């Protein structure tokens, strides 16, 4: 069975040049999918003077669509106005799968809606957790329910995120996959890391761990935006207590935000200028250089869908102390982390335990990098995402993709494109919302028909593709794996 390759459009409001977790996720995933022989384009809105088509490394094409940006780089939600240009791009690039990212991105929702109207397969990736109580969340959740009613498959970055998304959008849990984020391990190497001669660091000759004496300085690194939900208040409260209990400790804090002033006040009140260093905002490239200056990474966040930064810290060979919130407990094995409840006392105790353990040499941080490298890699993420694509396009049979244990649900999980069936799915969204959504879908469909008449498909140029890459493992395994999997 030859591996199928797809033309994929990643759609999100959030992309480079803006830095951030979603942005790098999209970039890395696209890049690895291209490596696996797919064609990937990215559609985002225009950033300042960055308009039109740009190319990134690896032949990744980015469409910067001029659009009104409303708030924090999210575009203005007009339900239909994105359709003409989106249709044009999809036809030009012969897109088969539309993959939207981030639930606060208007482009993503519109693209999924219009993609379904055009008869494309759609996938949605959720990167964040939302509550159910406040007004903004309620609105976002309703919107999410709207677009995800008809999506072919969703991807979440952690199991907690999956539970959250399933609840928010009333999805079938089997139609939600969990595919974690990853790190580029090469960019997060420990300070004196050298590749072991035999290739795997785990079984290499045991380099003697440099034991820390009782008066050696242990440095604790904190890198986070200094916002309330990142737990900066907790951090402000614990730093003086930790420094009081463990005098031979230093803090390095990187990042900026509205809570920075509280930290500075704390430093001045307690006269800790020589023990706490505040670096201010740093660029993502410099994160590794800051991390390798420390021994312990402290992550006091109050909510986190995945927590890529703690993986990065572990990859740099830091022992991680973090709060047990959101998806964080799923991310790292217990020998790399100490968990604390989001309480001042518990966090102080956990950090104290970590410092003691570091001093006693019980933690083999020098092995962390190789272990993390094997746990999280973008090529693995791309491979797992590809399976989702296979599933939604029908390459993998429905039984295999969704399993035989369908949990009592007898209907098909393949979303067909018949308008009536689509309307049925939207109708169930709520007493009023369902009817409103149906109206939107009908208008959207009429709009689609209008566009087909106004800008016929034949009049849109097809753009030439880059030559596709052949994934290395396919070259290697092409004979063996094909022989093995003749089921």
């Amino acid at each position, binding site marked *: *069975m030859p591996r199928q390759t797809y033309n994929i459009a990643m759609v999100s409001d959030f992309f480079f040049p803006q830095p951030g977790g979603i942005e790098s996720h999209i970039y890395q995933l696209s890049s690895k999918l291209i490596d696996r022989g797919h064609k990937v384009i990215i559609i985002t809105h225009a950033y300042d003077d960055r308009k039109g088509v740009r190319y990134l490394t690896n032949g990744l094409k980015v469409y910067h669509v001029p659009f009104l940006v409303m708030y924090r780089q999210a575009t203005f939600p007009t339900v239909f106005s994105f359709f003409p240009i989106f249709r044009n791009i999809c036809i030009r690039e012969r897109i088969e799968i539309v993959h939207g990212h981030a639930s606060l991105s208007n482009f993503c929702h519109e693209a999924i809606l219009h993609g379904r109207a055009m008869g494309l397969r759609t996938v949605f990736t959720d990167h964040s*957790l939302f*509550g*159910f109580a406040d007004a903004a969340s309620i609105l976002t959740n309703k919107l999410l329910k709207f677009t995800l009613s008809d999506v072919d498959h969703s*991807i979440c970055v952690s*199991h*907690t995120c999956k*539970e*959250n998304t*399933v*609840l928010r959008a009333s999805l079938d*849990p*089997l*139609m*939600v*996959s*969990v*595919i*974690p984020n990853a790190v580029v391990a090469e960019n997060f190497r420990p300070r004196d890391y050298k590749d072991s001669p035999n290739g795997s660091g*785990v*079984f290499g000759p045991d380099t003697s761990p440099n034991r820390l004496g009782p008066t050696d300085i242990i440095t604790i690194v904190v890198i986070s935006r200094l916002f*309330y939900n990142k*737990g900066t*208040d*907790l951090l402000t*409260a614990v730093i003086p*207590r930790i420094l009081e209990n463990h005098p031979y400790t230093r803090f390095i804090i990187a990042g900026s935000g509205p809570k920075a002033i509280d930290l500075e006040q704390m430093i001045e009140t307690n006269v800790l200028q020589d023990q706490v260093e505040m670096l201010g905002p740093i660029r993502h490239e410099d994160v590794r250089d800051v991390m390798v200056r420390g021994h312990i990474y402290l992550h006091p966040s*109050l*909510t986190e869908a995945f927590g890529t930064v703690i993986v990065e810290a572990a990859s740099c060979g830091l022992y991680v102390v973090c*709060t047990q*919130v*959101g998806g964080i*407990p*799923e*991310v790292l*094995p*217990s020998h790399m982390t100490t*968990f604390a409840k*989001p*309480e*001042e*006392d518990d966090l102080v105790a956990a950090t104290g335990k970590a410092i003691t353990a570091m001093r006693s040499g019980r933690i083999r941080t020098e092995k962390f990098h190789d*272990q993390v490298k*094997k*746990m*999280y890699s973008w090529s*693995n993420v791309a*491979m*797992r995402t590809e*399976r*989702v694509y296979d*599933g939604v396009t029908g390459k*993998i049979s429905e039984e*295999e*993709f969704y*399993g035989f244990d369908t*949990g009592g649900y007898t209907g098909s999980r393949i979303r067909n494109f018949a308008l009536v069936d689509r309307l049925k799915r939207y109708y169930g969204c709520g007493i009023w919302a369902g009817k409103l959504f149906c109206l939107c879908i009908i208008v959207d469909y009429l709009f689609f028909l209008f566009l087909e008449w106004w800008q016929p498909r034949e009049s849109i140029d097809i753009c030439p593709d880059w030559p596709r890459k052949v994934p290395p493992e396919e070259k290697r395994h092409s004979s063996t*794996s094909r022989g093995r*999997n003749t*089921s």
Partner: protein
Amino acid sequence: MLSPTDDDESETPFPTLDDQPTFSSLLSPDDAFAPPLSRGYGGDSAAESTHSRLRRVNDRGGSRRRKRAWKKLMWVKQSYPDNYTDQATFLENLQRNPRLKPYDFWPLVADSTVILQHVCSVIIFVVCFACIHRERVSPVSVVSWSSAGTFVGWLMWERWVTEEDQVEELNTSISTLVGRSGSLSRRRTRAASIRRPTPLRTEASLSIAAPSAPPSRPPSNEGSAASSATNLITGSKSPRLSPRSSTTAPSLISRPSHESLKMETPPFIIKDVNRTHERLGTIKSAVLIYCTLLGLSPILKSLTQSTSLDSIWAMSFWLLFVNIFSFDYSGGVSTKFPASLSTNAALMASTVLASRLPDTRQVFSLTLFSIEVFGLFPVFRRHIKHRSFQHHVCLTVVLVLGAGLGVGLVAGKLPKDQPWPWKRGVVGMIISIIIATLATGGCSWWLIGLQKYKNEIRGPWDPARPIIMSRQRWDEGA
């Protein structure tokens, strides 16, 4: 076809498998990636591993192979597809209505009387305006009656505060003996005294001039830091208002005030001297405000002459509406600043209404009356509720009856033969009682009935609430 997660590394059986939910103790880190033969397993697990391998070979005909228990972890490679949903653990941390406190009927009704009182006082204010506007009542009589009431209320308030202060003083002295907590509270009061500006230089000089006094009391508890420049205004408008309950009147009129910061309050002010002095200050500022208002009345009178009457009615209606809806009903006795939006809206409404009156005397009376009703009366009501529930209920009944009577007297056209249609007033009182009962009872019953629709979802995705011991203010902020 092999599923992507299903690589060879994951075929290694886990050394220990029990159904404990805590994941930290179950898996060794190497399970994520270690090659199968590199680790020595116990005999059992080794046998199991060969067994499972055999089975896997045998079962390759298409039936599902035996699976290991699924873990809610991401760093370990599992032989399950990514969209696998574990029936046992999926949404196990979901909580519904975790902090639901069911309401009881009668406490709810009792609490709703606070709203009733406020609505009634607003109605009474409107009725008084209507009477003044139609020239059925002399404005002077309204303001004299209300000022007399305010004065009586002030006297009562004074007595209560003195009593409370004595109790507080007793507690403080006890806690000072106890030690740390005492010092804490002292620090708090000191901070409070620093923050609060003192209105009168004389007081400051007095406190300096009295060093010979015995250090009988701990530094100013709330009363001594008392009369602030802002209070001066409200206090003078009506003597009832004490320093503690400085309302939002300052937003109405801004006056020059001597904001000399009080230094570290010396602990040797004799209480009685202080108290008398405070009373004098209050009376003095009351007189001052009285005069200011008198001077401002002619200006207020012509304020909205160019605006049509309809606009005025609509505007004042909406302002009073805002007042009722943004009023701070939950505030206790210690509330220093009642909801400022609410009070400002009410005072603006009264200003707008007063500006339609033809006579300076009427304007003055209505403005003063509105300050008493909206600025000072809520403070008094809070204290009554704090002191005794019976009095609170009595006040509620009186207010409801008064509002009903007022509406009955004012509503409709005035009969020619008699100036005061008392019969209508009685009917109004009866109706008002019925409406009040139905409203409080019905709304409480309705609210309890609505509780069954409450569906609050909580889970691990919610932002955690940090518990921080050393600082109090985060609790308020969050």
